[in-house]
């Protein structure tokens, strides 16, 4: 596997996909998600418990001897594809990928890591969701072991049991959620809401160095986000196709008009590309080979495709697509928020300029 990434899905990965999809079909329909996001508790913690605890999926990236399942990014990517398809309001990317990777990078990540891996607790890295791997991130002030400051744009903080907080002394600290003030921010994507975290002398336990942990966490987050975007794009195309085959105007199925057929075919091509790019990133994260380039390529490609897929789905649904009742706005809002999460496509292209030696003027 040294020269060619494995871009396929194994039988085990397909079985995992089927199990997650079955669960989501039964417990995460879009009408339910729409109803949930109008409440103060948009996250589906019952679903999370089944995924994390019941199916053991929160610990995929954690070795068995540290309390996890000892799987790889390839399997986590398949889970994220399915969660993306369902726009499931669960903290998988934030807790089971990003926070977990940060803890794996820390010398003293052991106890919180096992708690996250088992699904007993939810952890969140307190770095703004928009932050690209390698970009600067905000920190809080550390004074005599207590932390002071305010961090915004923290995804899924509302359901976190523990926050991983970078401080100005270069350390990454574990802070209990009960010790901070959480202020929900009205979010574009209500299925992955962001919040402001205020620390006013909160006690923290130093886990290790923040910089390498955050870099590693955001790289994994960015790489696997492409799989979520793939699921989202594929679902958008599926819904658009379903509608266009069913909807009749001018005494014909609307999907028979060539102007629309070509747009959908073009979208399908881009999604096929996204599938290859997302598998490449997941495989590179798993093997550690060519990872920076594979992740940057996947993220530079994924966001425009996922956003366009959702935008096309909305447009091709016509008026019904503009209603609150119809689920297409869930895909659009998630896709647009994802296009900012862990760095925009442009930020990843800029990273590539350095990685593959295509320097700016």
């Amino acid at each position, binding site marked *: 596997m040294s020269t*060619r*990434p*494995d*871009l*396929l899905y194994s039988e085990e990965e397909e079985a995992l996909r089927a199990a997650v999809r079955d669960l989501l079909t039964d417990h995460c329909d879009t009408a339910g998600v729409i109803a949930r996001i109008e409440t103060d508790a948009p996250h589906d913690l019952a679903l999370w418990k089944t995924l994390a605890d019941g199916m053991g999926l929160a610990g995929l990236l954690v070795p068995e001897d540290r309390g996890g399942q000892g799987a790889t990014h390839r399997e986590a990517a398949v889970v994220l594809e399915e969660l993306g398809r369902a726009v499931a309001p669960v903290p998988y990317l934030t807790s089971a990928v990003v926070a977990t990777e940060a803890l794996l990078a820390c010398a003293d990540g052991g106890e919180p890591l096992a708690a996250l891996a088992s699904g007993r607790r939810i952890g969140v890295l307190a770095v703004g969701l928009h932050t690209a791997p390698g970009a600067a991130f905000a920190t809080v002030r550390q004074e005599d072991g207590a932390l002071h400051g305010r961090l915004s744009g923290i995804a899924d903080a509302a359901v976190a049991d523990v926050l991983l907080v970078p401080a100005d002394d270069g350390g990454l600290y574990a802070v209990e959620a009960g010790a901070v003030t959480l202020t929900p921010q009205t979010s574009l994507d209500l299925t992955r809401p962001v919040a402001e975290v205020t620390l006013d002398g909160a006690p923290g336990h130093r886990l290790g160095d923040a910089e390498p942990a955050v870099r590693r966490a955001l790289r994994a987050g960015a790489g696997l986000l492409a799989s979520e975007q793939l699921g989202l794009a594929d679902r958008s195309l599926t819904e658009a*196709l379903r509608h*266009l*085959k069913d909807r009749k105007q001018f005494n*014909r*199925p609307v*999907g*028979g008009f*060539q102007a*629309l*057929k*070509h747009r*959908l*075919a*073009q979208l*399908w*091509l881009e999604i*096929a*590309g*996204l*599938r*290859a*790019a997302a*598998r*490449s990133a997941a495989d590179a994260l798993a093997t550690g080979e060519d990872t920076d380039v594979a992740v940057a*390529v996947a993220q*530079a*490609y994924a966001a425009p495709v996922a956003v366009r897929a959702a935008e096309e789905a909305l447009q091709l649904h016509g008026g019904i697509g503009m209603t609150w009742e119809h689920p297409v706005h869930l895909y659009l809002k998630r896709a647009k928020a994802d296009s900012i999460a862990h760095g925009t496509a442009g930020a990843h*292209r*800029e990273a*590539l*300029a350095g990685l*593959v*030696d*295509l*320097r*700016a*003027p």
Partner: protein
Amino acid sequence: MIDAAELRRRTQELLAAHPPADTGRLDFLHARFDAGLAWVHFPEGLGGLGAPRSLQAVVDAELEAAGAPDNDPRRIGIGLGMAAPTILQYGTEEQKRRFLRPLWTGEEVWCQLFSEPGAGSDLAALGTRAVREGGGPSGSSGAGGDWVVNGQKVWTSSAHLARWAILIARTDPDVPKHRGITYFLCDMTDPGVEVRPLRQITGEAEFNEVFLTDVRIPDSHRLGEVGDGWQVARTTLNNERVAIGGMRLPREGGMIGPVAKTWRERPELRTHDLHQRLLKLWVEAEVARLTGERLRQQLAAGQPGPEGAGTKLTFARLNQEISGLEVELLGEEGLLYDDWTMRRPELVDFTGRDAGYRYLRSKGNSIEGGTSEVLLNIVAERVLGLPAEPRTDKDVAWKDLAR
């Protein structure tokens, strides 16, 4: 069942009996064909051993390591990729024995007489006529007699080098267009065949126009039944798309390579606008490469996906956009062109000439082998299951179609 080890053994046996160093090129190729090592997935006696196609690589690697000559496959791509699989599927025993061996060795070059000035995307509307003289009446399936062919074909590569052509012609104008076509193997040395180079926008002539005037084809050179030519041609065309989409590339292996090289070597040409566009295209080229690689992995794993239908669409668009960017990047040099001399190249090397050539030649990528517009319809209908285009030509006799 023949496995890799057995193929290796047979290849070594061939090399021992015909050491490449002391064997003439053609003698070696004949021996290889007769040993069933030409194309191992073909039947025994026709250059193969009925082995899985994927095992061909085993034979090729052994022969290459031994320094054996090959059949220069790039020169005879139409024969290998299109004529051969069609003859294999539809040919009589006599036709297979007569044509496949010299086709594979390259002793006889093949070309394809399909497209016409009036039948491009709508190939089945073709108007080249074949009328039977002697034997049974035209339109009957009885054998015998000669066919007399009149018409014009276009975009024929290698016509000026070819000994044989695969040809489709109309044998019955009174039935709907798909049902009145018959497939022939046409002798390019017939005095009624006139080949004229067709100069293209790059200045050279890769292709030809072929004028057919009272060309006589014996009925024994008909491939498949009278009136079944469209069905037979579909085999040819499906193989054409496989041949076009099948290359494996390293990173920066396609059109993006020369642009990236120029960018690195000539910082004085860089602008911010070009930088943004270059990075975007670089990413798209890399994703297209990964998509192609994924498709190959699916094929190797015996699970072909529908992605193949899209490979050519993406490469056509990227080749055009990347080469367009390259001309612009070159600034003042982009105003120049290497050579407008009318030539007839035997091989086409997209990256072997300058940016202006690449820009102009790649315009053909979205036209040749199925236009992008038709391919998008194919994806929409066969992959996505969307309704077919409304047809007004299916139940109308060919002679009554608008033209």
